[in-house]
């Protein structure tokens, strides 16, 4: 995977089984985020293949790729919430834009917000929330469409240790029965995932 003259990912071969829980570590600009984006089909690799099951993502037509991308939920480092919408509307977004009836979308979004501990924040705007609460909204939005794979890109960025622990517990709780791939700069004790990968300058390194 190249960006101009920079090799972002080189010789990376990873296979992830359904239900597996993977932690991807590495310093800034080591290729974690690019790899996650490739995995979700958001970034086509300049060479090589990304396969979802037996299928090469590059060979899927746009509609089929979009349909299969619905199996992915993503939690972003920057929250990626819309301040112009309420928390409830932000969480409903993946449902309303897919023509899920509004009543059903409201019901599902409320249930997910209750699950992540934000029962009282439905009507608030993201800008009124703390960093940890925003992260919870991001998790709620990522799981509201019931994806089978949850990707989290540096979900603890900018959080204090206690909030970090609570978000880690939340991730572990909502990822039960799902594949979870989390990218972090370093392993953390609060998120003990079974498999750990380490990226070093775009290559897969050894895990100490």
């Amino acid at each position, binding site marked *: 995977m190249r960006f101009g003259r920079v090799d972002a990912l080189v010789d990376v071969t990873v296979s992830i089984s359904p239900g597996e829980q993977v932690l991807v570590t590495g310093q800034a600009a080591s290729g974690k985020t690019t790899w996650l984006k490739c995995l979700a089909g958001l970034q086509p690799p300049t060479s090589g293949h990304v396969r979802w099951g037996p299928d090469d993502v590059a060979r899927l037509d746009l509609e089929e790729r979009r349909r299969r991308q*619905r199996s992915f939920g*993503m939690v*972003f480092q920057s929250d*990626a919430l819309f301040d112009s919408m309420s928390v409830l509307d932000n969480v409903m*977004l993946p449902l309303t834009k897919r023509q899920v009836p509004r009543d059903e979308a409201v019901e599902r979004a409320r249930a997910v917000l209750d699950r992540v501990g934000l029962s009282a924040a439905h009507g608030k705007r993201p800008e009124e929330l703390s960093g940890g609460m925003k992260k919870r909204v991001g998790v709620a939005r990522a799981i509201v469409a019931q994806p089978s794979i949850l990707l989290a890109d540096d979900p603890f960025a900018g959080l204090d240790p206690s909030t970090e622990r609570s978000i880690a517990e939340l991730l572990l709780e909502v990822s039960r029965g799902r594949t979870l791939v989390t990218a972090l700069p370093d392993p953390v004790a609060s998120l003990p995932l079974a498999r750990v990968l380490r990226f070093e300058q775009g290559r897969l390194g050894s895990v100490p």
Partner: protein
Amino acid sequence: MIRALGAFGLGVARLTGALALVLARTTLNLPRLDRRELFRSIVLFGYRSLPLALMAATLIGSTVVLQAGVYAVKFGARLYTGWAAGYALTREFGPLLLGLVMAARIGARNAAELALLNVNGQIEGLRGISLDPFRILVAPRVVGSAIAITCLGSVTFLVAVCFEAVSSYFSLGLPLRVFFDSYQDMLRVGDLVGGLTKTLAFGLAIALVSTVAGLRAKGGAVGVGQAAASAVVLSCAAIFSLDLLLTPFLTRLFG
């Protein structure tokens, strides 16, 4: 020197390609635009720009008459002020000046908002939850701002002509009825259609240019500022270029 020229040429080619891509994707998404975002864009870019457009209309209308009136009196053509001022406003000054004002108001705002959504990751966020940001966020803004600018143009022309009449009354002593008679007798539908065509073209140019500027933004607050500035500068350049191309074309078409 050659390297600089090459880089400039590449930049122009990239920009043209990006504009064509945004136009094509917007056209493809027309049947399934996000209605809520379209409505929001029309309100944000159109309704909220109305005070500025009306103020511009008042000043443009009055200034055109004050300037044209000097020559109208000098050449004994006071009675034709209504037609001359109306023609100048409808075919040239109205669309051009409104376009420039809206490039600063709507172009900068659209570019800054999209740039902020881009650098803060919201656009990528939509893709991350397998939604198409172009259909949900970008296309409705392009269409909304083009509609808003065209509607503002129509209202602005109407108000500006009224202020031309008032200004003629006070500065040249021309009765309102005489002003509007000359306007009605000599101004043709083609002149109005020509003016609105220019307004629509300028509106579309502002929408496309500002969208491209916003989507290409990188790197935090500096990137957002650069996107807004580029949107205004490139929109103005696009407006002047389109004016140069459209004026002879519309003159041939409508006389």
